């Protein structure tokens, strides 16, 4: 009896201690997420319905309903930024996926040097976006003195304007981005390839499959979850691209990030301009919500279409 009571007491004090511990972690955490996530989400949504400007006194804030959203779709710069965002994603995604999958397969097959190649290809991923974008912009893409144009001059090739021309600026940024992020996708793909059991390949070999057939009927289907992951994270990232565009266009001489002539302005860059240069916080918030809805829509669509159909 006595021992049982003592045991009960001990477990009770254990319970009390654990309860206290859990609450001491969970309560501050919930308060934090309430203040720095939930409140801003709501405030952003509500603010998008107001004529909200930075450093404005509360009294002059006027409710304008969906006016910000209606203005958005008449704003030619916003429409251009939307188009550019999709243009960037559509140029970046297929290039990045095909190239990184090819590299992952090649590195996997390269035997002794696989570790070395993986390390080298991953190098740009770990380094700063800002520093590397600056070096590409100033050191490689610069008219006349950039490395690309210097080498072109050496071989008597025509000079490229790269970031200075509205027709090539976006492409130049996409090429940089592929270089910068390639290693990330390679590592993810290599992990995915490693997870495919070798028995599948052995079975395919016994059946007399060619290497192309093995890729088509074994690797590709079994790599699907990895592929979905890379595509989803890639698209979400592309739709929010900001840093390289800001740095590369400003460093190459455009007056505002997103130049020349708004040829590289994307939604995130335009939102920054509207909110923090023109101080239109309500209008900027509306833009943020539209971007969020687009991202959400694409994610849902993808998870519908690219659902995992194989199990192993």
């Amino acid at each position, binding site marked *: 009896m006595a021992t049982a009571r003592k045991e009960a007491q001990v477990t009770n004090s*254990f319970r009390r*201690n654990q309860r206290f*511990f*859990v609450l001491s*972690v*969970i309560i501050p*955490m*919930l308060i*934090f*997420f309430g203040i*720095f*996530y939930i*409140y*801003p989400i709501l*405030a*952003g949504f509500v*603010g998008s319905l107001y004529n909200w400007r*930075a450093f404005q006194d509360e009294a002059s804030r006027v409710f304008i309903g969906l006016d910000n959203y209606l203005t958005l779709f008449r704003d030619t710069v916003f429409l251009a930024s939307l188009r550019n965002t999709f243009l960037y994603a559509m140029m970046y995604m297929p290039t990045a996926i095909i190239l990184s999958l090819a590299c992952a397969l090649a590195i996997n*097959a*390269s035997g002794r040097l696989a570790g070395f*190649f993986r390390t080298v*290809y991953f*190098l*740009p*991923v*770990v*380094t*700063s*976006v*800002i*520093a590397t974008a*600056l*070096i590409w*912009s*100033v*050191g490689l893409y610069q008219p006349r*003195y950039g*490395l690309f144009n*210097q080498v072109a001059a*050496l071989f008597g090739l025509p000079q490229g304007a790269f970031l200075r021309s509205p027709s090539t600026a976006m492409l130049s940024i996409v090429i940089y981005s592929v270089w910068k992020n390639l*290693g*990330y996708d390679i*590592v*993810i793909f290599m992990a995915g390839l490693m997870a495919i059991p070798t028995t599948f390949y052995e079975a395919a070999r016994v059946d007399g499959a060619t290497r192309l057939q093995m890729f088509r009927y074994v690797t590709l289907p079994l790599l699907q979850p*990895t592929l979905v*992951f890379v595509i989803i994270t890639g698209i979400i990232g592309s739709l929010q691209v900001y840093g390289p565009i*800001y*740095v590369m266009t400003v460093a190459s*001489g455009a007056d505002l990030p997103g130049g020349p002539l708004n040829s590289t302005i994307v939604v995130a860059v335009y*939102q*920054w301009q509207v*909110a*923090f240069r023109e101080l239109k*916080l309500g209008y900027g*918030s509306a833009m*943020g*919500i539209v971007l*969020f809805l687009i*991202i959400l829509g694409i*994610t849902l669509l993808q998870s519908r279409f690219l659902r995992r159909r194989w199990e192993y």
Partner: protein
Amino acid sequence: MTTVTNTSVPITARDQWRWRRIDLEKIVLWIVLGIGAIAMVGPFYWMFISSFKNRIEGSAIPPTWIPQNFTLENWGALTDLSVGSMPVFFRNSLYVTIVITFITLFTSSLAGYVFAKFEFRYKNVIFWFVLSMLVVPFSVTMIPLFDMVANWGWRNSYTALIVPILFSPFGIFLMRQQIANIPSELIDAARIDGASEYGIYFRIILPLSTAALAALAIFTFTFQWDNFLWPLIVLDKPELYTLPLGLAQFRGRSSIDLGLVSAASFVSVLPILVVYIFAQRRFIEGITLTGMK
């Protein structure tokens, strides 16, 4: 009894040819991947050597692959740029990044531990709530956050950089997955031996999750070292700038000084490059750990 059975098929001329073909294939692969590797490293090499060239050599045609007139003038000029001083930016970045990394490791492992090893009411709902914060893009919360920070008088202070990321949904998720693998018997045994709950966290959970902590530390450090948008919004005093903000001040009106830009960029790349060279395996393992799961 033991008869040595030679099961290997005698090597025919055809097989030999096959072996040679595979070798040849590998060599072609190495050459192609090698060219790619040069493209990967090239910009860093160009950055490095350009920082030791003077203005004239920096714009020379044909370009020089090794500095002919080696100079340190670009590196010397870093303390006195028109936008501020690189060493100051460097110190600011180091301070902010280290503080944020330590806080993230602490809060993520603590909350991750609670989610992994305790039962309490609404646990799953709360965990799902934390996870759902991952899908909220920064473009939605950025503007209200700026408004809050401005109202509280936090603009131009590191409080504005640190406080809004005290807890990381991603870090909590990662640590929960990893701490769940620690056997609960260890925790119960410590409890019976009279260890306090925080004692268990510090003396059992933390030491046993070093691999995940290292991955999270690397991830947080590299991410914060490069964080650009939020500091750009809340800081506008050059003496408070972090490295990305300082670097973004280079504006190419006419011809920009390649040597100076190279030296400045190299300063910001160097610390991570050094750590990467020595711990590259950890970086890559970290990505597979943080990316997939």
